[in-house]
């Protein structure tokens, strides 16, 4: 059952920011996550602020400098199917197409996908866990086969549920954010908050701050991007292990790379160890073998999810092999 709340649909970003700044306000984009959160009573909300009247938050357009700007309210389906996205950033199109199920992709938005609440079954269930203001993480000593192997610091072991965030972070995307103090820009890779910084929130966005657009830089001519996700069932599921790659190639060598993992950590997890291994090298068997070892460096698996290390090795091998294959 939903709690009792008021509903507003402001027509300007300014009004939206004002409404959203109020205590107990929640933003409503696609609502696919919000409604579930309200129903499950995991956040106290008495005002739902709809973004749907904000024209500025729609549309996918090329920018003057050959980049791309995507409205925060672009649906995941729009992102997955947009020819510009598919052409310039195939990894983002793949990431979007791996989200949830067709119905949810039609309704869910890119901005909302970045701001999802965790899918930990303790967080979503009747457990007063650390992230909900309680005094313990139940998953740590409990049932954590779906939980994090990196970056949890044994504080809270959620994985960040987004499939688009790791790709956007790999592609160097930036968010335009409106807020009480005016506008600002946040790199997607800096959006999410690890538990050691604050276990009560998932993003750096403060009260009243609204993502309006997601901007992607002009893709380098030699950019190759991809996203690969493994899950417990083929649709409508979050990542057990996923890898987003953005590689700038110099012939058959990797010049620069950004590698982000999903299903790995409470935030989209940058694997600098893999980036270091592949930099300047051909994606041959030797490099891939080293990348396999590198991807699990510094992992801190829990007793019930050590399998994820093997899974990440398998995924990075498959993805780098595919990238290394001549087109």
């Amino acid at each position, binding site marked *: 059952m939903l709690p009792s709340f008021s509903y507003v649909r402001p027509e300007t970003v300014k009004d939206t920011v004002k409404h959203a700044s109020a205590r107990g306000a929640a933003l409503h984009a696609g609502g696919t996550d919000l409604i579930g959160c309200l129903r499950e009573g995991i956040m106290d909300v008495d005002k739902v602020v709809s973004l749907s009247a904000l024209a500025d938050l729609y549309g996918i357009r090329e920018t003057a400098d050959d980049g791309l700007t995507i409205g925060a309210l672009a649906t995941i389906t729009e992102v997955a199917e947009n020819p510009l996205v598919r052409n310039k950033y195939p990894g983002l199109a793949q990431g979007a197409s791996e989200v949830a199920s067709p119905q949810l992709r039609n309704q869910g938005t890119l901005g909302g996908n970045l701001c999802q609440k965790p899918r930990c079954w303790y967080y979503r269930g009747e457990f007063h866990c650390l992230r909900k203001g309680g005094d313990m993480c139940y998953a740590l000593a409990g049932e954590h086969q779906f939980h994090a192997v990196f970056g949890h610091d044994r504080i809270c072991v959620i994985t960040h549920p987004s499939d688009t965030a790791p790709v956007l972070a790999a592609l160097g995307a930036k968010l335009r954010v409106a807020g009480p103090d005016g506008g600002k820009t946040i790199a997607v890779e800096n959006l999410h908050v690890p538990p050691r910084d604050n276990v009560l929130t998932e993003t750096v966005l403060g009260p009243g701050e609204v993502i309006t657009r997601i901007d992607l830089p002009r893709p380098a001519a030699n950019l190759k991007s991809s996203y690969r996700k493994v899950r417990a069932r083929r649709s409508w599921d*979050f990542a057990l292990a996923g890898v987003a790659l953005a590689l700038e190639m110099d012939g058959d060598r990797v010049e620069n790379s950004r590698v982000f993992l999903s299903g790995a950590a409470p935030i989209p997890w940058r694997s600098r160890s893999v980036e270091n291994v592949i930099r300047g090298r051909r994606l041959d068997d030797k490099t891939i073998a080293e990348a396999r070892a590198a991807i699990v460096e510094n992992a801190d698996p829990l007793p019930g999810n050590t399998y994820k290390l093997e899974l990440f090795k398998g*995924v990075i091998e498959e993805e780098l092999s595919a990238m290394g294959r001549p087109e």
Partner: protein
Amino acid sequence: MAQDDSIYYRQGLPVPETPEPGRDAGFWETTDIVGKRVARVDGYERLSGAAVYPSDIKLPNMIYGAILRCPHPHARVKKLNTAPARKMPGVRALISGDAPESGGLQWKYDDYAAPLFDPHCRFEGEVLAAVAADTRYQAWDAVRAIKVEYEVLPYVSDHDQALDDKAPRVHESGNLVGSDEYIRGDADKGLSRADAVVEQTYQTPCELHTPMELHGCVANWDGDRLTIWESSQGVYAVQSRISEVLEMPLSKVRVIGHYMGGGFGSKLQPGKYTVLAALLARKAARPVKMILTREETYLCVGNRPANTMRLKAGARKDGTLTGLDFACTGPSGAYPAGGTSLVDWQIRDLYQCDNVRCSSRDVYIHAGPARPFRAPGHPQGSWALEQMMDDLAEKIGMDPVELRLKNIPEVSQARGNIPYTTTGLRQCIEKGAEQFGWKAAVKKAREHNRSNRAVKRGVGMGACVWIVGGGGPPATVAIKLFRDGSVNLNMGASDIGTGTKTVMALVAAEELGIRPEVIQIEHADTGTTQYATPSGGSKTVPTESPTVRNAAIDVKRQVLEMAAEDLDVPAADLVYQGAEVVSGSNSEKRIRVTEVSRLKKRGVVMGVGYRGPNPEGKSVNPFGAQFCELEVNIGTGEVSILRFLGAHDSGRVLDRLTYDNQVFGGIVMGIGLGLTEFRQLDAKQTGKLCNRNWHDYKLPTALDVPADMVSLPIEIDDPEANNTGAKGLGEPVTIPTAAAIANALYMATSVRFTRAPVNPIEIRRHL
């Protein structure tokens, strides 16, 4: 009203012969409508939304019920303060254990009677109080306003630990619900004579029933008469249970369930919620709608119990099975509910083996009681036996199909060697393997695996028998023939989504020569329709279809008697031809059915059919075999099922569309057991259910099942089974699926996955 000839599918030709009074109907040698691909008679209603399910019922002045449930797996209620809830807006009735109307009321689990409201809560979700209010929101707000003090008690979640000395007791008597032993021959001796012996432990997960429509009902009192619209597999079963609990005459309890959105065994009985709705409705003097939430159904109204199975099997080099030794543990849950029920049936009865020992221990744990789940026990036992057959085949160097064909029993060994009326086990395996292209597929997969490192292929199979599936008495069906020739079929059976109404329309159409779509069906209403047992056990078709046939024959006999008066010839000389009745000796003598004087005068002829007995000294059982081909991504543990074939002997196919539907649905459900579904309890900390939504409880999706599914009916005439020759289908189709997948996974990976479900987690743990 003039006769409309368009209602007949054939004219001028006889429908099946009408047996003389007192004689049984003969077996249909051929059929015209039965066996064809006929769309659902209620397809329009179901697809358009016009069909009214219990969840759709809205009555004038109806209010809404909600239930307060214990959040702990084991707790004692120290104090329950309902006063704040009573003052909440919209609240019209509240009941709890101390209310006078609930005093002495009991709820039975098998033979175990517990108080309706028990302050000693033995599972998460146990009922403590119920509220009815003007809106659902008000009802839930009131439930939340009830103050409860619990003494939280230690719990046991794991059935394998339930019998430990230190395990918290679910009941005073201890945690053993019961044990069972079956012995045939001497298993130890048999195993000692084997050339190859294999022993293995297998585990299957607890699965949660997930019918599309939630459990629930609407209850309404009219004076001392109670009417319940229940999402149910059997209205008479609900009537019986509710009249017993509320101590009311059966005649005063009317249960209606025209449409229902699936049950899979969990709706063979009403729930405590049904009683609560009735009590609240009486107290509030208003109709009460009580539809559970998905979270509640996951906690409270059943599951397929998890099982731990140990199997030891031996075979000689020539493939002869010499011994099977099986032991199994499983949880009923917090009350007796068949935690190991029928798990050993495949071991007892599927393959020829003289030396069999089966033992089982059913235990209590602090979790929701089990309920029958499509082919109770069978897929679990199959998971063990069918994998072991493959292991044995490998050990003795025999093809798995060959090994099974070596061990086909001609009689039901577990029933003292009585014969089956028919057994299609051999044909299911042989013809299934042939159509699947078994040998070629095995060869192809092995070749593929020699040259591919990353993605491996496997093919696998499994066979099955279903313990019942022959149906049987009692059942009564009435068919009314109106004076315009149209027909009304009246039966108590529920159509649980399997197409019962459509199948019965075909049977009546076959006998009467009328197109099935003009047969109006009244069903599943204890107030107005005939007696039927619940739709479960894959027995509805073999129970109801002969009964429908008998009712149609009774109509025809009566019409022939009446026409004999009009034509002045003996009834025995007359032939029923659908539109007309014609003299066999003088074809000049004929009369249209709608012109028969007594029919015109009476307005209607009513025929009544009863289900006759099953054959004595024989067993009626469906058999099957399933084959699958899949790919495994070795690096990621992802499994793609490429294709499935189900070859099933369920006697005569009555409607090929609904038949194939069951085969495909059974395979999909079996894929859930094999690859995706499991209940997760927070066993180490709270004992509470972790996965209580559709993301965390992972039903297979469209992408998890292959587009390439083939249904291959193995039709064997079975005139002894019953007069339509149909056997049950809905359950056997899900028995061997998971095991066939496991066998294919073994070929692909060389790893025996003994614990289901085999998701990427499980695969990566072993590769």
